[in-house]
């Protein structure tokens, strides 16, 4: 009984821990940068620091990371946006220097076709496999028994019935 309660409590904790761990991390900035002149620039900047990767911490974007390089790149992004650069221009500035790895979402290009294509390919493959199976199964059900086969089956069932009830 106690064990059951314990394990259910443990389960609850685990579920909550799991749920929390999948929540998007809350962004913070080490030193707040001055607000941008226009709300459109602010939106561009906010979008950029979510889309650009902190190169030294791999799975963090510039917004989430407090690494020094991330802070420098945030400053640079801020500077470029203030200078009137749009989203695409800042992305080009960064990829010219750090490569496409600086983008959190890899762009679609020759070297990433496999990366983008394989999940779809796998999905289509599994889907056709499932359809194939279902078709085959329904074909089996449609098989009609011949008159002799039906007779043989009925005889068998009859015999079985007689044997089990003495």
């Amino acid at each position, binding site marked *: 009984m106690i064990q059951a309660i314990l394990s259910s409590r443990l389960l609850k904790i685990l579920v909550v821990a799991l749920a929390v761990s999948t929540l998007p991390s809350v962004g913070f900035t080490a030193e707040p940068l001055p607000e941008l002149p226009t709300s459109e620039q602010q939106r561009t900047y906010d979008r950029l620091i979510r889309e650009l990767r902190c190169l030294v911490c791999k799975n963090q974007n510039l917004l989430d990371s407090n690494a020094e390089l991330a802070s420098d790149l945030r400053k640079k992004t801020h500077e470029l946006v203030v200078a009137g650069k749009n989203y695409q221009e800042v992305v080009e500035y960064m990829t010219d220097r750090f*490569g*496409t790895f600086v983008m959190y979402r890899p762009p679609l290009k020759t070297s990433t076709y496999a990366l983008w294509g394989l999940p779809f390919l796998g999905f289509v493959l599994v889907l056709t496999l499932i359809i194939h199976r279902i078709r085959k199964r329904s074909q089996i059900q449609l098989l009609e028994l011949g008159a002799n086969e039906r007779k043989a089956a009925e005889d068998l069932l009859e015999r079985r019935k007689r044997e089990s009830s003495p």
Partner: protein
Amino acid sequence: MNSPHMRYKGIWPFVIFCGLAVLLYISLEKNPEHIPSPLIGKPAPKFTLPDLENRNSLSKQDMQGSIWLLNVWASWCVACVQEHPLLNDLSNSGVVQIVGLNYKDVQADAVDWLDKHGNPYSFIAVDATGDVGIDYGVYGVPETFLIDRDGYIQYKHIGPLTPEIISQQILPLVDLLRERES
């Protein structure tokens, strides 16, 4: 019932397993720290920076006509200590000029560090803000660039240099660039 189609059905999990095994084996050899630089084959970004002793300033144009290494280092960089003897040797051999890019450092610390570990650099450009570092796509110190006579980046190494990198990558490339000129 046992059509040839059916007989080979059982082989698929094995084929998939083999495919995955090969894929994982290849990934094992790959270094996730190695990010190919988009700068290779492109003109090295321009800069004009003060010297560590604050006497002169160096710009990229000053290096036009010579093959040189740009070594990004800092006194706070632990791995720099590791590669430094190699840079000293390379500098003594006189094969190639080495320019230091003192990245986001404190001047006094940088001077002390060089006193202690030796100075292989013909010039040390001070990038206190790290802006030039960003232009060169620097994200892990030390980094080393090989730049040709026309100012194009020919090679980039991220992390500390090793004797192998120098003898198998950098020196052959320097030879090749020399030959191409003459």
